């Protein structure tokens, strides 16, 4: 069965330092992969998506993610954290017209001043 694992429930980084949010998927085929961000009491906003066109995907707000099939990973990175990046981040996988949309449990990113 397809699954998405976000390895860290909380990540804390200092402002101006790099961000790494980890996501692994379990699938016998290459899914479509997404990262969403959720600020408190708000809906989720799409950061970026991978749909097999390129393994390195650039998103909004300086975020990017790299699809590594050999590692079944789709980690989210940003070179320099900003205070406004403090939020919860969700990794999502889906594939095909009939498969379910699978959410990871989320990673809460804390930015230290």
């Amino acid at each position, binding site marked *: 069965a397809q699954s998405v694992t976000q390895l860290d429930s909380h990540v804390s980084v200092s402002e101006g330092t790099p961000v790494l949010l980890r996501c692994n998927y379990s699938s016998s085929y290459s899914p*479509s992969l*997404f990262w*969403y961000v959720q600020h408190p*009491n*708000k*809906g*989720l*906003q*799409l950061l970026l*998506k991978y*749909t097999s066109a390129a393994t390195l995907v650039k998103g909004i707000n300086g975020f990017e993610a790299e699809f590594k099939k050999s590692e079944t990973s789709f980690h989210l990175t940003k070179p320099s954290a900003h205070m406004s990046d403090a939020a919860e981040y*969700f990794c*999502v996988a*889906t*594939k*095909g*017209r*009939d*498969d*379910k*949309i699978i*959410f*990871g*449990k*989320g990673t809460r990113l804390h930015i230290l001043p």
Partner: protein
Amino acid sequence: SQTIHQWPATLVQPVGSPLSLECTVEGTSNPNLYWYRQAAGRGLQLLFYSVGIGQISSEVPQNLSASRPQDRQFILSSKKLLLSDSGFYLCAWSASRDSPLHFGNGTRLTVT
């Protein structure tokens, strides 16, 4: 451009009272529509999804129901709320199953 509207933003209801949350999408036709619930400290739980008018799939048996009376309208209802129905409810739409989801701003429901 496409927009999604969800209301109300917050709601406090007593146990046993009915519920109706509404979601509408503009700027697209025949969208896939979804209702999710997010409990405190947890991820998103898919409650219902719809691929067309009158077509509703339920993911989790519970005290809630959904309806799609029009192409771009999705309603979440309950006849009698339970304390466990408290949570953050999110409506979303997508063009297809493997397209990005577009979320509304959510409804914070507190059942007292």
